[in-house]
């Protein structure tokens, strides 16, 4: 019953976010600040993780394709498919749920604890619109970060394959171009956009409705990471079944 109530409250919150908009000049500066904080601030970790995950995927694929009858180009093919379909959109989103999600929950939660949200409400500001909408709009830039993760992941795979001696460069690149379906990229970006909305709103929900003090802010951040990850994993399954199944 509590879960049902929480889900209902989440959707009411999302509805409230789009009501009584904040003045555009103020909203614009909030959005730019959030893009800087949520997207540009995460690029470093996204690039770092994508590079090494791409490399590891390549090495593991190469080690499992030890039959001499299988062409080495399959290593490039498997790397491309894994990185584009899953590692870049889903794995990066789980990382973002931890990094960006905990930042969102703790910043909004601290405002709740120190009565700053009450201050906004008393002034007549739609605090949900003021606090959450800029984050949702900023997260619309998230597919660009995932595109970078795709590129860097494949680059990491190429470096691991070529310099690790698992496949020659030409074979790997041939595999990258083999049976390429552009819809797979579209699928990855649609998934990413939906995950972006989840990463912006689920942690906001946990911060906005938290009760207690500083300790509870920490607990809310942890809970928010767990629930954001759970929602991403479930949606990943549903979207994959709907779009590729």
């Amino acid at each position, binding site marked *: 019953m509590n879960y049902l109530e929480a889900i209902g409250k989440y959707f009411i919150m999302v509805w409230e976010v789009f009501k*009584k908009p*904040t*003045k555009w000049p*103020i909203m614009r500066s909030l959005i730019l600040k959030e893009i800087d904080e949520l997207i540009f601030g995460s690029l470093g970790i996204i690039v770092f993780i994508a590079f090494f995950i791409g490399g590891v995927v390549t090495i593991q694929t190469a080690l499992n394709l030890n039959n001499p009858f299988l062409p080495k180009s399959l290593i490039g093919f498997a790397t491309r498919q894994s990185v584009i379909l899953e590692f870049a959109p889903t794995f990066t989103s789980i990382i973002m749920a931890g990094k960006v999600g905990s930042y969102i929950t703790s910043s909004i939660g601290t405002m709740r604890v*120190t*009565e*700053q949200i*009450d*201050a906004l*409400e*008393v*002034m*007549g*500001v*739609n605090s949900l619109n003021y606090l959450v909408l800029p984050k949702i709009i900023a997260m619309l830039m998230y597919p660009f970060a995932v595109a970078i993760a795709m590129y860097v992941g494949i680059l990491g795979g190429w470096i691991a394959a070529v310099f690790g001696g698992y496949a020659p460069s030409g074979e790997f690149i041939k595999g990258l171009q083999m049976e390429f379906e552009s819809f797979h990229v579209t699928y990855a970006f649609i998934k990413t956009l939906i995950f972006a909305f989840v990463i912006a709103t689920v942690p906001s929900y946990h911060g906005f409705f938290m009760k207690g003090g500083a300790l509870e802010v920490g607990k809310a951040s942890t809970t928010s990471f767990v629930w954001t990850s759970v929602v991403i994993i479930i949606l990943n399954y549903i979207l994959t079944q709907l779009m590729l199944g």
Partner: protein
Amino acid sequence: MIEVENVHKSFGDSHILKGISTSFEQGKTNLIIGQSGSGKTVFLKCLLGLFQPEEGNIVYNGQNYSELKLDEQRNLRQEMGMVFQGSALFDSMTVEGNVKFPLEMFTKQSKSEMNDRVDFVLKRVNLSDAHEKYPSEISGGMQKRVAIARAIVMNPKYLFCDEPNSGLDPKTAILIDNLIQEITREYNITTVINTHDMNSVMEIGEKIIFLKNGFKEWEGTNKEIFKTDNEAVTNFVYSSELFKKVRQMYLEERN
């Protein structure tokens, strides 16, 4: 003027406010006093519209809050200023940013008009040289003054203060009390203060409401509180020896 009619508020099984009726007059400092757990904060949050009473009405200059639409309620709230117990300043903004915030949100003033208004209210609370400081860089008393400046920058009709003196030294507390009273008279605001501070009760309590266990136990002025026979009020207000002596001297003087 704010009229409160038979307000009830509960949280789950606990009935916090049990039929409070009173009125808060314009241009006067109205105080809500009572022991911890008596329902003061819940009552103040009902007055602010942050809590919705289950029963009863709160009427602001003829506008019944519960009958207003959400947008109308938000518009009414723009006529309210609030000084929170912990000041509730936006810690990512400077003092100037905090005070300017309501102007940027709700007015179409030019930058220079806003700056003039911010300068004026900061000067009014004796903080002319703190524009660029962040809340974490100023003292508790200064934070309270910034909160007052932010609360009055939009020329509110209603000013609410939750424990404005908590955590302040006696001298600064008196300064804040006097500032609130001056501003109330100067701008003819309906001010409601939630307090534990007996100095405030004696100094600025033009109307005092005493809450006990969610009921309104007593109401009167700071002059009348000396004469009251209400045991709950005298036990609460005159719990310290100093205030007992003050009361005795006052009554002896009158006799």
